[in-house]
């Protein structure tokens, strides 16, 4: 573990660092798998389910990222996601899944547009406007769902008729042998096998598309003039304005894109995950998306990792029959805290070390004293992780400096 840390500290290239981190994660998973004796921790089913659960969360997080990078805090993601599920269901069952995607995009633009009107044009409190969007999105979807689906064949007031499926890819030749390799329980190798077989098992084209959106976001926001300007609006809009950047325009673009991303997350739920629009389908994933974005330090890569982690924990919860996987989660959490504590020792932040150490000790003793843990551990873990990051690693977080502050041209500060 310390070897990995020193590689990360060293001047090695990013690829080397990434590889080192990746192997360290696999090794940790492997150790935990052996120690907690849960083979399912890295099985094809778990990984595949985790991926499916991660995508909508990740897209919501990406939506949060686009808005917040332009300086608008978006807690209306949930409402926008709901609009997305409805849009996907409404056009999807009638004209097919691709039309469903289009529907989600249109409704995302609607949600984002209303939100932008309130926060950018009128400059109202972003948290309040977000709350209103959540109420509106829910009411809107419920109202129109009743009208659109009640009399539809196979539909009902809270559920759309089913949407035809999008193509998925399964690479059986690759996946199946890896599954048996995973079953052997080799150190690290089995983890790698489980991971690869899971990724290439019933891979939805929407998952691939979503991964593309992450890459595109990273490129557009960090590599192009457009992205630099959009981010400048979230960092210091007055400076941006003084250099001729149209602050309102970029904020609108950020918020509208945010709406589209969140709605696409909803579309994934409706089209890929369940094949129908269903009331309450989003289940707070908009808020989880917000959490992953914070967890991921307002960056696409971090958000993806956060979404992967949250999806993974959720997958374990759904597949855990006897509570042993929950034990593994607790152990994983404890190990993560210990890593953070080691980092904090190096920085001589002893108060933080103390806090992390105590929490880790509690978790480890919990692990040692039980044989099975309640599934609610997984319900709580992602949020607890985000809170811990906020509480103990906030110095490392770099939210956009002008995030959440309404901008009025000419009014400084």
């Amino acid at each position, binding site marked *: 573990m310390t070897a990995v840390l020193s590689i990360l500290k060293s001047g090695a290239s990013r690829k080397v660092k990434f590889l080192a981190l990746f192997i360290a994660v696999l090794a940790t998973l492997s150790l935990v798998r052996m120690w907690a004796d849960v083979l399912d921790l890295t099985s094809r089913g778990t990984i595949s389910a985790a991926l499916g659960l991660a995508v909508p969360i990740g897209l919501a997080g990406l939506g949060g990222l686009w808005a917040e990078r332009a300086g608008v805090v978006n*807690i209306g993601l949930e409402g926008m996601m709901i609009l997305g599920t409805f849009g996907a269901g409404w056009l999807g069952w009638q004209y097919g899944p691709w039309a469903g995607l289009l529907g989600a995009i249109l409704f995302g633009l609607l949600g984002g547009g209303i939100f932008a009107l309130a926060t950018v044009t*009128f400059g*109202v409190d972003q*948290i309040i406007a977000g709350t209103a969007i959540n109420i*509106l999105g829910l009411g809107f979807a419920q109202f129109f769902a009743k009208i659109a689906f009640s009399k539809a064949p196979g539909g009902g007031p809270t559920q759309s008729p089913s949407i035809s499926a999008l193509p998925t890819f399964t690479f059986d030749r690759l996946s199946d042998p890896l599954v048996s390799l995973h079953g052997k329980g080799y150190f690290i190798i089995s983890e790698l096998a489980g991971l690869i077989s899971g990724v290439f098992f019933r891979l939805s084209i929407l998952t691939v598309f979503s991964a593309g959106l992450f890459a595109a976001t990273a490129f557009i926001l960090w590599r192009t003039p457009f992205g630099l300007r959009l981010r400048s609006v979230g960092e210091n809009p007055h400076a941006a304005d003084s250099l001729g950047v149209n602050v309102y325009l970029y904020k609108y673009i950020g918020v509208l894109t945010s709406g589209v991303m969140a709605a696409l997350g909803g579309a994934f739920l409706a089209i890929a995950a369940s094949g129908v629009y269903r009331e309450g389908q989003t289940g707070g994933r908009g808020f989880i998306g917000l*959490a992953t974005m914070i967890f991921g330090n307002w960056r696409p890569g971090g958000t993806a990792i956060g979404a992967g982690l949250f999806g993974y924990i959720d997958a374990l919860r759904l597949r855990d029959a006897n509570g042993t996987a929950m034990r593994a989660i607790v152990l994983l959490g404890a190990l993560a805290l210990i890593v953070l504590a080691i980092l904090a020792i190096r920085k001589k932040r002893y108060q933080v070390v103390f806090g992390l150490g105590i929490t880790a000790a509690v978790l480890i003793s919990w692990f040692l004293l039980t044989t099975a843990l309640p599934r609610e551990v997984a319900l*709580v873990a992602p949020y607890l992780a985000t809170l811990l990051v906020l509480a103990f690693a906030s110095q490392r977080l770099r939210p956009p400096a002008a995030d959440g502050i309404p901008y009025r041209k000419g009014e400084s500060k």
Partner: protein
Amino acid sequence: MFKRIDTLIAPLVAVAFSVLFGSIILLVFGANPIETFIRMIDYASTPRSMTLILNSATTYYFSAVAVAIGFKMNLFNIGVNGQYRLATAVAALVAGYITFPGYLGIVVIIAISMLVGAAWAGIAAWLKVARGVSEVISTIMLNFIAIGLIAYLMAPTVLGVKTAENVIGTPIIPAGNRFPGVSLPTAPIPVYGMIFLAVALGFGYWYLLNRTRFGFDLRAVGMSPSAAVASGVNVKRMTVYAMLLSGAVAGLVGLPLLLGAQYTFTVNFPGNYGFTGIAIALLGRNHPVGIAFGALLWAFLDVSAQILDLTGVPREIIVIMQGVIVLSVVIAYEVTRRVKVRRQQAAVGSAGQ
């Protein structure tokens, strides 16, 4: 007098705009808006409906006051949902398992509920003051953690039981621990007795804010943190107090339903009163009387919406209207604020400085 009109204008415009918006939707779907609204009012005028409105408004009032306490010093307690759910769950467990002599039970249950709510909000307060974590984010996280915690507590292997409808929840609360209600004449169901507590809370809230040093300090921080500091207010301490207070009031939100009608906390216990509270606090401008009107309006919309399904319009149109109210009320506030500032600047400019 002008001040009064100024403050009333924004909510009135917002409600009017929402009615207009609702009317358009009704027209689009072939319903006569005037007829529809008359039917809604007719339906809401029955004793049963009026009882339901008062009952809902009681719940909303607690929630909105909890939010308003935070708003008064620019704290955003999004966590009322988590605070009241956890508080109600714990209170329901205590009330379900332990029998107290006389009215002691009610007092203890209310106290426990408020304590749990305050403690849960206290985590967010600590995170804000000691670690600089925005209360908006931390309370959202704590809401979800509360859900997990409740799910755990309610598991039949832990403290929960299967209720009659085969739902998992707490044991039925014995009669001694219930909060007695009062019935309107000819109404089939009673009004929550806790409505009197809500009225008392409204008065207490007003008194605390306007008639005590503490309330003044709290409002001073909300109006101008810099001036509050210069006047000797310890802003961090006030943040903790306000958050604890807000959480304690939030702890009351679930009790009317629990102790006045449902007598058990199940996993299906309504979970979104907190967001309703935000909307109503905004609508009522954080004023105890304004909040009361807001809560009644909200409850009226909720209850009278029941009739809409019969007219062929989905009753969820009410949720849309509620969302429109919130959005347009904040926009209306912002616009009136700007007009006011511009008016004042003009006045000050012509005065020479």
